């Protein structure tokens, strides 16, 4: 059994009386696209926030290539090569597209002008930003210097996706990256995700779009009520089965036993896919 690229065990996050992450586990293997699906408020975003350092869990552990890690800030996760598209997009509204794309990773001019005087290479950043956006098919953006708060919802999302795609060096996490995108643009993002995977980077894709999930994902992590309810392969389960898992109509025993609806062959095909048997459980 290979070591997961990113693994979490027993994560917990409480906000007052709301428990956003309730003893959740997570496994992402090298080179795969892992879809995370679940109802609204199931805790998907909270989970990936914990994995990307945006939120510090109350309990549980995170392992990067088998090494236990703690991210105290999104910066640390980013330094480890984990790039994230947050559901809230995390763009600075008053700044332009190019600036947002390179925020925190600005390009400097070559030579001493850049290293000593720290002069930014504005032209290069604009050029690369334009290329990246073009690749996502966002053609209606009329110039790369447009202020983000004046962009349409889809244009804004494309900026966030472009940023993550540009800089991910170890894995890319995308929280509903196509929610606001048009048909064509969504398609291009799916292509992008495939290309990222082909570069060898694993991708975590949160999505409510089942056809999309089934088209793209190697494995599907079903999240329910703050924890992982099941992991299935798209080839082993139907869309309606996955939806039933999300809503709790279909269940897998708490001990990782086979599903109580017999005709569904879940989690059985490989150990990597099984609901972990030995995950630590806090009371």
């Amino acid at each position, binding site marked *: 059994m290979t070591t997961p690229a990113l693994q979490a065990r027993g994560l917990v996050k409480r906000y007052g009386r709301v428990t956003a992450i309730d003893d959740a586990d997570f496994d992402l293997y090298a080179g795969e696209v892992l879809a995370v699906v679940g109802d609204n408020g199931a805790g998907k975003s909270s989970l990936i926030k914990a994995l990307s350092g945006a939120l510090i869990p109350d309990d549980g552990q995170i392992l990067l290539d088998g090494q236990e890690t703690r991210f105290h800030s999104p*910066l640390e996760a980013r330094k480890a090569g984990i790039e994230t598209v947050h559901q809230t*997009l995390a763009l*600075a*509204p008053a700044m332009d597209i190019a600036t947002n794309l390179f925020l*925190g990773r*600005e390009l400097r001019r070559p030579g001493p002008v850049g290293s000593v005087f*720290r*002069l*930014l290479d504005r032209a290069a950043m604009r050029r690369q930003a334009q290329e990246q956006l073009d690749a996502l098919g966002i053609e209606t953006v009329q110039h790369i210097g447009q202020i983000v708060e004046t962009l349409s919802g889809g244009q804004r999302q494309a900026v966030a996706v472009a940023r993550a795609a540009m800089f991910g060096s170890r894995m890319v996490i995308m929280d509903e990256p196509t929610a606001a995108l048009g048909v064509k643009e969504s398609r291009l993002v799916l292509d992008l995700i495939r290309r990222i995977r082909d570069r060898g980077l694993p991708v975590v894709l949160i999505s409510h779009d089942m056809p999309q999930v089934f088209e793209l994902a190697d494995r599907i992590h079903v999240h329910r009520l703050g924890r992982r309810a099941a992991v299935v392969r798209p080839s082993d389960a139907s869309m309606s089965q996955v939806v039933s898992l999300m809503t709790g109509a279909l269940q897998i025993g708490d001990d990782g036993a086979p599903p109580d609806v017999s005709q569904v062959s879940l989690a059985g095909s490989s150990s990597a896919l099984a609901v972990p048997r030995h995950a630590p459980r806090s009371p």
Partner: protein
Amino acid sequence: MSAESGQLRGRTAEAFLHNPALGPLGALVVAVIVFGATTSTFLTVDNLSLVVQQSLVVGTLALGQTLIVLTGGIDLANAAIMVLGTMLFARLVTEGSAPVLALMAGFVICALLGGVSGGLVTWLNLPPFIVTLGMLTVVLAVGRLYSQGSSWPVTDSMLNALGEGGYLFGQIKVTHGMTLAVVMFAITWYALTKTGWGRHVYALGNDPEAARLTGIHVGRTRFSVYLIAGVIYAFAAWQALGRIPNADPNAFQTGNLDSITAVVIGGTSLFGGRGSVGGTVVGALIVAVLRSGLTQAGIDSLYQDVATGVLVIAAVAFDQLARRRSR
């Protein structure tokens, strides 16, 4: 080619129109023209130089304030820190320190005080208003204690250099203080607009949570802003001794409000993330120009206040109305 240059012109015009310092700049120009036309004494090289000198201290304070306001903060203690700086320079030199050492001590203390505010805001996550308000009361009191209840005249040529030394630029007298201010504004402008640090400062003020999620060094950047502001206040202290060779614990009681005023008139938003150093220059000059011009016109300061208040509102209102039309 011509279409391109047309587009370029369009872009420049647009950038220009989007600059919130535009209205105040227009008001400044109008004020200069009006005073030039109505008084014989306003538009003279002497007087223009004086107006600039009169806005040096507040302008320098406002430079530091601009940085802090851009991050969404506010500094109520800047004038108090500056006054303490003048006290340190003056008393140390009077008591026999080498001027260089006195200067260094003053700069270190000012930077330290800026740093303490910054540290509390950054790492304890306290509201900047409260932190700098506390800092204000403490620094004011310490300054008064340190002054031993009297003001300290300064005669050292190094400490007074910014006001006394200078050269003629054409016919205009340019003091070293003016040169220093230009250099400082230029450097800050460069840092804010041409470096990654500057973009992080804006991003921080614009949306702190987004800045954090993007992986900017939020804490480090915010802290650096307060620290740098502290250093700038030390420069303001030096400027103040250049203007008035006397460290007075009671001086500059309105320096803080004046500096915020310059920042806000210059179009920088008190909510952070939007604004410019160029606007602050305009903001700092506009008040001095009104004050000088109205005096030249023979108007008593009581009525000057009324006029200044109305004109400041009018400048900004004009800007808003122009913008609304163009929308």
